[in-house]
């Protein structure tokens, strides 16, 4: 037993523990509202087959362009399809494409960013130059070009949006990695004989996940916006599949007399984007170590 006078053996080590990140997060009203809205929309999307009152592709010539009514809460479109059901099923596309595109971007971009930031030197210079070039393209134009070249289907759509996300995450991950390198524990790992991969992926990466997650939720919103915009232009998942942008596109010709075709899907896009932004901001506030405690 050590003879040093130390913390008394019975005393459990404590400091003034700041309220945990979760506590701060749940106290943040914005974050909770965002989570609730997003959760509701995800549940609706998953439960689409049970929630949608009609088959989204079922056409009914007799009921063309009906305004919202008791039978059709969101009205019908030019082919007599129930807009509510189409919006519900459209959520699946938007959320699925948005989530997978963002996830792909996060995974690839974060790994490249961490490696580039950690190794420095020539590798870092090349990656930074490439990232700067890619980031100089507006996301929408990039997506547009890629889908036009590769063809409009769900896989290519996800790929196109993911490609636009990768450079942004490289940048975030790289910046956070550079900040982490300044901290002594990275040197400590090297002094303990740990190899680069272990340090990068077991030590640096877990510590930068806060920023990456915040960026991720904000990019999720951007991905959905891009998907909707591409669908609106006609480069989204091809019809008859219901997509929010597609519904708006269909309603474009009847903008004034059948405005419900434009309003409801727009509201859906608005809702999910607000929710994701609230989540992103709330997470950022909750994980910011400099926030007052």
């Amino acid at each position, binding site marked *: *037993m*050590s*003879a*040093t*006078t*130390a*913390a008394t*053996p*019975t*005393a*459990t*080590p*404590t*400091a003034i*523990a*700041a309220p945990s990140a979760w506590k701060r997060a749940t106290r943040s009203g914005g974050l909770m509202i965002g989570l609730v809205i997003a959760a509701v929309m995800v549940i609706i999307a998953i439960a689409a087959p049970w929630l949608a009152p009609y088959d989204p592709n079922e056409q009914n010539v007799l009921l063309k362009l009906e305004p919202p009514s008791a039978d059709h809460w969101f009205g019908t479109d030019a082919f007599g399809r129930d807009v509510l059901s189409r919006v519900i099923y459209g959520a699946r596309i938007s959320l699925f494409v948005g989530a997978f595109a963002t996830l792909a971007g996060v995974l690839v971009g974060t790994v490249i960013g961490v490696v580039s930031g950690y190794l420095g030197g020539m590798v870092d210079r090349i990656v930074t130059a490439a990232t700067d070039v890619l980031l100089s393209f507006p996301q929408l134009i990039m997506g547009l070009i890629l889908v036009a070249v590769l063809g409009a289907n769900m896989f290519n759509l996800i790929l196109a949006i993911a490609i636009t996300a990768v450079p942004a995450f490289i940048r975030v991950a790289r910046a956070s990695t550079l900040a982490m390198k300044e*901290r*002594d*524990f990275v*040197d*400590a*790992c*090297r*002094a*303990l*004989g*740990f190899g680069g991969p*272990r340090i990068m992926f077991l*030590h640096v990466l*877990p*510590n930068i996940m806060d920023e990456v997650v915040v960026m991720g939720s904000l990019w999720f919103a951007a991905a959905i916006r891009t998907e909707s915009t591409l669908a609106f232009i006609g480069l989204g998942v091809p019809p008859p599949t219901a997509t929010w942008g597609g519904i708006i596109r269909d309603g474009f010709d009847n903008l004034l007399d059948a405005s419900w075709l434009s309003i409801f899907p727009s509201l859906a896009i608005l809702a999910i984007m607000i929710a994701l932004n609230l989540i992103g901001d709330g997470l950022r506030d909750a994980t910011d170590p400099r926030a007052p405690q």
Partner: protein
Amino acid sequence: MTETATGAALLEVRGLSKTFSEKRGWPVPKTVAVRALDGVSFDVARGEALGIVGESGCGKSTVARACLRLITPDAGSVRFDGIDVAAASASALRTLRQRLQIVFQDPASALDPRQRIADALGESIKVHGIARGKAVMDSVLRLLDEVGLPPSAARRFPHEFSGGQRQRIGIARALALGPDLVFADEPVSALDVSVQAQILVLLDELRHRRRLAFVFISHDLGVVRHFCQRVAVMYLGRVVEEGPVPAIFEEPLHPYTRLLKASSPIPDPSRAVALDLQEGEPPSPVDPPSGCHFHPRCPYVMAQCKTVAPALQEVAPRRRVACHLFPAPAT
């Protein structure tokens, strides 16, 4: 030259030099060369604590990182137990890392905030294959006990501990691989006085019990005087004086060492810090003065001090000074 039973010092540093290129200045940054280390040499014997003192810009932190090959020196050699550290292969370096360790100044920054203490301490044991499975946890608990922390600490995260406790954890981590020499880079500077004393007592115990050698880097002369047997004083990348602690502190030879000692506050009102000291800013390592770096501030400056850098000479048994006031004794 300090010797171990086998006749050679445990750590031999000769002519270590390192220059950094930095971009400084606003609005147009210029690349400047910062001479962090300029021909640094010293020895450390087994079980001995060598202090390295100096103020900011003297290069003392760079010394530790260069010796451990966390940064690559531009010139000079570092020999540990006869092995050339700079030339070691990757696998030899890994083995070497078990024997040469480091404790950092800021305990909050030195620990991975996302790792539980048990993992922080056990990881290196597992990576180097020293133990496996349950034996790792046994080692972790032994280490915690050795640094005076309860076993319950193993489950916790760094932010749940105070500064002093985190420093104990940092020390435990450095001990995990059973090193022979530990670099301690300002290990107590970020701690309160009462906690500082606890850590110093702990380090002293460890030095005796494990026959650990230390390179103890600090700006605080009182701490160095207490803990170390030998001390090297650095100024702008060079060692200006080196020798046994009692001799150097009782009777410092180099004018800079004297200035350091006279400026160090003592808790005794009858021996207040000499406040009638000269004015002037300390030079920066970007553009050090020619000749002896200290000449612009030296009360004894002579003509040759401005042009010729004095070499580190042995002026008494085991005492070396780099100053024209003390030329090497004629043979």
